[in-house]
């Protein structure tokens, strides 16, 4: 009561007829004293919570009372539900997209004309973590080789790689001793994707991990690549792995796209029954975020960019995603 009296005094000013409203509509923010304001705020919060609980109970009672005639439960809004519709979303039956994909740079791979051979390298002077990450990545991706970059220019490496029949080039960029960027370039004249890499976990940092990944060719799972851009990125990832997975190995590499973040995981699975499967994580894990997609091979100055992440334009809406 004392607090209430103090508040009334401090409210100071609303004319008498307004005070007739009950309870008095004073806002908590008008109290100058921090302690008292905090106290009033807590009280207000408690009241709100109580009202909410009461409303919930009432609604539940009504629902039970109606029984079958009750309106169906409302679906909670998630960011995925509320996603702004992207006009470049690929319809599975779209012919134009199918035609494009049959004639783009990955067509030779998908027609089984080329076998993927991958070169993994880093930026200059890699530190221990990056080196170990490269090695683990090489075990995960079959038919891949790690080479040290001793200050060589990428533009000179690329013709050499093409000459030696490599199909893909991965460059892991390092900053302050942790890998933070990935450049994935499809070699014979293919697109180059530049990603920002985050939360890299090496094998020893993963809890409850299994044994080392074996030499078997893993399966590939690509989730949620819906738009045209997402499709091309997904195909890039798919072209890293050989076509025929060896099911004996029971290994699966997953690229899961969620809100423009691509999560990479490498698991070993086992079917316990026909409705239950157990998975065990081996292998490194990391998340990627696409920064730019360039038409030709790596050329930062004169390249033709298909897509660049422009922060000012593209990060305006929280419900808009591009992959």
């Amino acid at each position, binding site marked *: 009561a004392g607090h209430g009296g103090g508040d009334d005094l401090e409210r100071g000013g609303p004319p008498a007829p307004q005070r007739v409203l009950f309870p008095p509509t004073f806002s908590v923010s008008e109290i100058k004293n921090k302690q008292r304001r905090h106290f009033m705020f807590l009280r207000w919060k408690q009241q709100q919570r109580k009202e909410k609980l009461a409303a919930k109970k009432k609604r539940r009672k009504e629902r039970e009372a109606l029984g079958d005639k009750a309106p169906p439960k409302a679906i909670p809004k*998630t*960011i*995925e539900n509320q996603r702004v519709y992207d006009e470049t979303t690929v319809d599975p039956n779209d012919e134009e997209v199918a035609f494009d994909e049959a004639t783009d740079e990955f067509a030779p791979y998908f027609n089984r004309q080329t076998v993927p051979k991958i070169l993994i390298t880093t930026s200059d002077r890699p530190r221990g973590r990056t080196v170990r990450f490269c090695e683990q990545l090489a075990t995960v991706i079959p038919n891949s080789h790690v080479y040290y970059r001793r*200050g060589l*220019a990428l533009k000179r490496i690329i013709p050499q790689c093409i000459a030696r029949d490599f199909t893909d080039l991965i460059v892991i960029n390092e900053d302050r001793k942790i890998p933070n960027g990935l450049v994935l370039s499809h070699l014979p004249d293919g697109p180059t994707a530049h990603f920002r890499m*985050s*939360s890299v976990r090496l094998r020893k940092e993963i809890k409850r991990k299994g044994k080392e990944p074996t030499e078997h060719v893993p*399966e590939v*799972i690509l*989730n949620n690549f819906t738009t045209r851009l997402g499709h091309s990125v997904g195909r890039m990832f798919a072209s890293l792995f050989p076509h025929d997975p060896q*099911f*004996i190995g029971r290994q*699966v590499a*997953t690229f*899961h796209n*969620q*809100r*423009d*973040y691509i*999560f990479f*995981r490498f*698991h070993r*699975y086992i*079917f316990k*029954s*026909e*409705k239950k*499967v157990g*998975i065990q994580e081996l292998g490194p894990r990391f*998340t990627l*975020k696409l920064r730019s997609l360039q038409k030709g091979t790596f050329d930062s100055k004169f390249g033709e960019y298909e897509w660049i992440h422009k*922060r000012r334009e593209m990060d305006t809406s929280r419900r808009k995603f591009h992959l």
Partner: protein
Amino acid sequence: SPQVVWSMLGNRQFCSYKMTTKTQNFCRNEYNLTGLCNRSSCPLANSQYATIREEKGRCYLYMKTIERAAFPRRLWERVLLNKNYEKALEQIDENLIYWPRFIRHKCKQRFTKITQYLIRIRKLTLKRQRKLVPLRRKIERRERRREEKALIAAQLDNAIEKELLERLKQDTYGDIYNFPIHAFDKALQQQGAESESESDAEREEEEDEDVDTREFVEAEDSELSDFEDMDKLETSSEEEQEEEEEVEKKASHSKSKGKTPLKGPARRKRPYIEIEYEEETEPTTKTKAA
């Protein structure tokens, strides 16, 4: 005079160009030849002094003489040195011809060092440049938070498991696993159907048999019963009543038996228990009687 200057600045009092460290004193003066704070290298404490300085890739020789000590604006005389290394050295020698050895030597050393680092700069600019991009803290924080939320929303394990099960259903794994779902379920369903149909069939067969037996029995008994009835009818109604009562009793017995839930077969045979009892007992009695 320079002696006085040195005794003031260099040794005791404050010189703003002087930087002291644990082991050495440095001189920050831009005209200093060696960079150290010494009696011989202090440009303020020497009235005759020379330095090499470079501007925009070209080297200049700066000289200071006593004659111009009164004119600070004209104090330092500047000579552009040749781009050629040897010719520039000759130029230095030519200009500093009667100067102390120390200054000449140090000038040439400095010039050598400067040309070397200029060469290195030119070489490095040809190689790849590393572009430093500043991170914006707010954006970094935002990205990290969004990644965490996306990870939670992704529910990766569930998604992977679902995908694998779907692939199993669609038979991409072929015959590797011993529980292809469809066949198993179908087998189960079939078994269920078979068992039901079998039980039905059995029941039907049993019923048929019962029906047959009933018929068979009935036929016999009917004949007998007819005879019996006829006999009974001929004889007296009391027997009929007794039989009826017996029948009723037996019926009631059977009914009671039926009511007390015993076994399946007891229940199943309930509809014709009565009849059997009726007809079986009667002929037995009849036969016994007979």
